[in-house]
């Protein structure tokens, strides 16, 4: 090596002039190239170092599996999210299925292919199959969900033009149980009805939706309603269970219903969700609202009485009582006997403006938004005449959705604090509370509602140990020509329990029930809807493990004072009647 270097040195020293300059230039160039390459290699070396040692070191320190998580995400994004009930039971989910497509271009012997397909799918119509095999089009869907046996048979047949494709199919394991609530998706995977439509975006991102509904309670309600519909040969029935404290809708059933797995077979009346889309004159259950308005505006004593001796006449209207007492009635009596005359007089007493304000505050004048699902617009008289104040006090001349009723009565039972119904499971307690009515009004109303069950028209809703409080409502339906029809009723019952500190609200509505032997021919709410509520409350107690209240002090305290008032009123009027006859 040294001789080689010395040789170069000698040469350098001996070179002069032009040659020296050329050599310097060459040297400079080689030095430049060498440096550039070294820099390049250094760069590569640094990058190698980074990739092999530096990056993994940092990855380990922060998120060790970042890379694989990124890779996994798209898989779940492909499938639409699940809809589950509050306990995690699946209400809607996707399953991977194998679909069979046919590309007739790649099928040489079409007759054989047709025969084989007919053998594999004997249930398919011959004409449809033939059309598909002999079609001029390409990639035609033959079957959306193949069984493994069918798949095997097609593989055995061995036609290159028969193609398998993996697809996701939306299924509803609970069938009609939650049909109206969950809704369904179209063939393009877009939510078309129910919460599938409301939460379409979220579900399409692969996110799951957990509903407030409890499948077990939904089943109990469904069963009770179906039985009552059959017993009373009713046209339709619907029911709601709500957690009063959180506003969570634990059950919402509307019958008749349909199977969302085969939604295209459903008729329009089956797809109609009464609880959200139906507006009805609710009848006497509205007395809960008008009586609450009386307590809120006038703060009267329970002994305040109104003369219900004769029907009330206002213009061309004549207001009668269904269970006529024909005497002066105190507030508890009006409520217990469900006196229309008494309630109309209450309405007159509090005045149109106050009644309207309380109704508006309770939310019966407007659509309500339940987790994105908007209820139908209530029908409120326009213009509002003085007679409307009278009729609206006992639930006629104003039509609302069952959900409106649930919200209003829920608010009254919730100590006067607004209850907002929701279909989505709520985990945290709401901080903002809107007070609509005073706590005193709420307590008084619960006393009256309890009285209806212990002494009044709602006796058939009583479940020993669970203190159900509520109100019956039997409304005559309006005919197409305008008048009320005596034989077409809408019977409903709204109950809350336990009366001394309500946790749950149960509402049942039966459309056009016909009386039967068991109900002694009656089709009124006390005989139809109230027993349904009783069945639901019994099931709830068993399902939710609600302990029976064996200590009856609280319960007795609630109605004791009212009982005294009623007894006094009855004896004093009997006395005065005796005097008059003498």
């Amino acid at each position: 090596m040294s001789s080689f270097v010395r040789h170069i040195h000698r040469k350098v020293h001996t070179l002069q002039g032009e040659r020296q300059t050329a050599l310097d230039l060459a040297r400079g160039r080689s030095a430049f190239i060498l440096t550039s390459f070294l820099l390049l290699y250094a760069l590569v070396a640094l990058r190698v170092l980074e990739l092999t040692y530096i990056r993994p070191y940092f990855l380990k320190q922060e998120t060790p599996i970042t890379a694989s998580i990124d890779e996994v995400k798209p898989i779940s994004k492909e499938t639409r999210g699940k809809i589950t009930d509050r306990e995690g039971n699946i209400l809607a989910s996707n399953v991977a299925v194998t679909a069979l497509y046919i590309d007739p271009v790649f099928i040489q012997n079409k007759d054989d292919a047709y025969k084989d397909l007919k053998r594999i799918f004997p249930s398919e119509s011959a004409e449809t199959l033939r059309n598909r095999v002999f079609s001029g089009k390409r990639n035609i869907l033959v079957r959306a969900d193949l069984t493994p046996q069918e798949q095997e048979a097609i593989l055995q047949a061995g036609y290159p033009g028969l193609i398998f494709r993996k697809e996701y199919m939306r299924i509803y394991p609970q069938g009609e149980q939650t049909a109206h609530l969950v809704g369904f998706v179209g063939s393009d995977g877009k939510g078309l009805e129910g919460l599938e439509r409301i939460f379409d975006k979220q579900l399409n991102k692969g996110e799951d939706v957990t509903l407030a509904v409890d499948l077990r309670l939904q089943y109990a309600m469904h069963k009770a309603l179906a039985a009552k519909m059959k017993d009373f040969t009713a046209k339709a029935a619907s029911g709601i269970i709500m957690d009063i404290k959180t506003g969570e809708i634990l059950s919402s059933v509307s019958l008749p219903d349909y199977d969302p797995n085969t939604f295209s077979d459903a008729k329009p009346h089956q797809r109609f969700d009464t609880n959200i889309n139906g507006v009805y004159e609710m009848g006497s259950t509205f007395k809960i609202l008008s009586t609450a308005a009386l307590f809120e505006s006038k703060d009267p004593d329970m002994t305040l009485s109104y003369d219900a001796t004769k029907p009330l006449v206002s213009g061309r209207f004549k207001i009668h009582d269904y269970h006529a007492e024909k005497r002066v009635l105190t507030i508890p009596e009006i409520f217990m006997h469900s006196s229309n005359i008494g309630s109309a007089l209450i309405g007159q007493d509090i005045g149109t403006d106050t009644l309207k304000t309380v109704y508006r505050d309770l939310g019966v004048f407007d659509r309500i938004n339940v987790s994105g699902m908007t209820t139908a617009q209530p029908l409120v008289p326009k213009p509002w005449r003085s007679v409307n104040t009278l009729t609206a006090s006992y639930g006629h001349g104003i039509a609302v959705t069952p959900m409106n009723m649930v919200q209003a009565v829920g608010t009254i039972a919730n100590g006067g604090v607004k209850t907002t119904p929701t279909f989505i499971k709520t985990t945290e307690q709401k901080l903002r509370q809107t007070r609509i009515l005073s706590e005193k009004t709420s307590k008084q109303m619960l006393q009256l509602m309890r009285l209806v069950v212990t002494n009044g028209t709602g006796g058939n809703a009583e479940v020993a140990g669970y203190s159900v409080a509520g109100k019956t409502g039997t409304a005559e339906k309006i005919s197409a020509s305008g008048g009320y029809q005596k034989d077409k009723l809408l019977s409903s019952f709204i109950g809350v329990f336990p009366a001394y500190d309500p946790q749950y609200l149960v509402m049942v509505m039966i459309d056009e029930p016909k009386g039967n032997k068991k109900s002694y021919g009656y089709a009124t709410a006390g005989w139809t809807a109230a027993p349904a509520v009783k069945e639901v409350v019994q099931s709830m107690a068993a399902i939710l493990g609600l302990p029976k209240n064996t200590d009856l002090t609280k319960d007795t305290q609630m109605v004791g004072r009212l009982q005294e008032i009623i007894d006094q009123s009855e004896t004093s009027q009997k006395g005065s009647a005796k005097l008059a006859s003498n």
Partner: protein
Amino acid sequence: MKLTPAFCLGMIVTVFLGVSLFVISQENQKQRDVLSTLNKSLQAKQEHRLTLEAEWAYLNKPERLEKMMATLNKTDVGDAPVLAQSNVMEALPVIALILPPPSKPAKRYAVIQNAEPVKDIAMVLSQLGQGVE
């Protein structure tokens, strides 16, 4: 071409880097294959899970369970207190006391899977225990 020391060094570095890069790219490819296999199996498992979940949901339909209960256990619990599964351990000592002989059907309590635990277990137990000698 003359072999200068710098040139030799450069060559060594180049060969070393080339070999390293090759090994790394191979290793990378191998890991990608593993990842892809894992992802495929993960997807298959996810799909399988979805199917199983759906099947589980079908099998656990309240309607079906009720029918099963009616066939398998012809006991009508009536309005006897109902216990959640999570309460059973707590309630065992009392249940043991009130259990009827195996020949007679148990009518005094029912256990419901997934039921909310009874808050006031003491009260239920006192109800269960009533009449225990």
